[in-house]
């Protein structure tokens, strides 16, 4: 029996990110029910807070953000002239004297890199005195490119380090760059796999940006659910049993999974992410299944 919730056992439809991956174990319904009844998961449902009413924001990254001028001027911040290196299907690679970038509008992907050598650290081992300035610069860059404030979720300001070893000698870790991780969220719910990462060098100058941030379709999003927490823990139990597990600590949280059409416009659907902690009789790795919550608009 599971702690926290007990609900009628339903044969859950296990989502493995829409890639058609079958459940780990194709159990008969009767066996699933038996195993689910015998399962002893402990659920942490504290993250299943109420999702605000509403829909996608009006201000959001448009498809046109992946056009050359927008990438060059708004995202990379340069007026240099670019030439095409190659074009393979929808993946286009361009270069200028200072930058190279590739885009794929149909998948909402861009990588832009400053090709010039990075500048030196100006202040010893703490090169930038106020990293909050880098955070603001990164967000300003993305918003100039077209990312709306209503699409931005958690922002992490981090430091990239490097440690060297040479013939048995190990150097102390050294600061290599500053990174701003901007995670996408709608209505406070993270969008799985969507983020932008802006990197600044030790001199505080912009070095590179990578983004998986497809434009959102205007309609078709399923951002809410009418299921109760008890319903969801029941479905999560079945999903985990079908994945071959029978016990452990499970943390449930919301997330949106994305499906892109041929134009590159993404529609979002709500699922509950059931993450099983490793150890004990659990998996060797932190393992997560997506649980169908019968998402609605």
């Amino acid at each position, binding site marked *: 029996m599971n702690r926290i919730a007990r609900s009628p056992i339903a044969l859950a439809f296990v989502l493995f*990110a829409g890639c058609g991956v079958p459940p780990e174990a194709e159990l008969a319904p009767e066996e699933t029910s038996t195993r689910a009844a015998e399962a002893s998961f402990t659920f942490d449902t504290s993250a299943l807070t109420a999702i605000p009413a509403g829909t996608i924001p009006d201000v959001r990254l448009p498809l046109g953000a992946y056009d050359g001028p927008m990438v060059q001027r708004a995202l990379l911040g340069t007026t240099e002239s670019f030439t095409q290196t190659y074009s*393979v299907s929808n993946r286009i690679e361009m270069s200028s004297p200072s930058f190279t970038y590739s885009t794929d509008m149909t998948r909402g992907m861009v990588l832009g*890199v400053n090709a010039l050598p990075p500048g030196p650290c100006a202040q010893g081992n703490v090169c930038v005195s106020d990293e909050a300035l880098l955070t603001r610069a990164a967000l300003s860059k993305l918003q100039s490119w077209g990312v709306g404030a209503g699409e931005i979720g958690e922002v992490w300001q981090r430091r990239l380090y490097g440690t060297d070893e040479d013939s048995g000698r190990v150097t102390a870790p050294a600061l290599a760059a500053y990174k701003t991780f901007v995670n996408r969220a709608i209505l406070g719910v993270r969008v799985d*796999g969507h983020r932008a990462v802006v990197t600044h060098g030790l001199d505080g100058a912009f070095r590179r940006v990578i983004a998986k941030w497809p434009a959102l379709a205007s309609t078709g999003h399923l951002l809410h659910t009418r299921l109760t927490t008890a319903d969801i823990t029941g479905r999560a139990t079945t999903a985990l049993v079908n994945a071959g597990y029978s016990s452990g600590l499970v*943390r449930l949280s919301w997330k949106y999974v994305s499906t892109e059409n041929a134009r590159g416009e993404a529609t979002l659907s709500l699922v509950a992410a059931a993450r099983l902690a490793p150890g004990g009789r659990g998996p060797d790795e932190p*393992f*997560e299944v997506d649980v169908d919550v019968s998402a609605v608009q």
Partner: protein
Amino acid sequence: MNPRHLLIPLAGLAFAQPALATDDLQVYGIANFNGAGQCSSGNSHQRHVTTAALFASPFNFFSAVGMWNAVTTLNNTNAQGRWFSDAGKAASCSCTADDLNASHGIDDADVIWVHTHGSHVASGGMYYSSLSMGTNAYACEARTDTNIRAGQNGGDLDIAVIKACQSADYDVFVNGGYRPQISSATGGFTMWNGFHGDSSCSSATETNAFTYSWSTFSDGAGENWIDLFYNDSPVADSDDCPTSIVMGSTPVARLIMYANGGWRDRKNTGDKTASTLFYIAGCDPSNGRVLPTN
């Protein structure tokens, strides 16, 4: 994850370039464990096969238009310990080491992707990572100390991307468990990407595998890996801490490979006499220390 990503259209080619004879990718998705003939290591996760396919997908497209040579998928029982073992380390393998095996051995490829279960040891004078294999017919573990060495004796491997727990651990690194074990000074093996501590397995892993592969043909072989796979978990001791180990003669050469190396732009970093481990400071995984700033 949109299955459309597995079906990349062939239209729209411009600037076709000749296929490069030595551009080979091999992907190893090891998903099945604990069954008959299988290795014992955690639960079976079919997602390991899915990510292998997603990582390979962009290479299939580039191959179709003449900008990549070969793409080989070697899942489950085709991921054998003998093909991860170097002849110079054969004493530790209850098999005939054959990492140069044409189209199967890891050192026959230029780039490999491996998704499996992993572990590490960093104590008692032993420092290594271990990857679980797809069959117990040969070695069940491919270890960085007793099995793996690439880039010598005609080996081709340049870049290894290892989606497995504890596959590129900080404490193993600082105690010489990677470059001195897995490469040779004059070989071409340049990059080993993996994780410090445990790495999670979710639908985002699938998205990130494709995004990483598709983004990295010209730049960011190390940096894209970290940018896309890093995750700061709301749960204590549960971060995903990707790391990139780059081998080469100078810090500048290694940094260039990390930031500007790509699948089709594999940099020459000189003799593999040193290496750099790149990571996000403060990252705190399970089964790994908090990554340091000093």
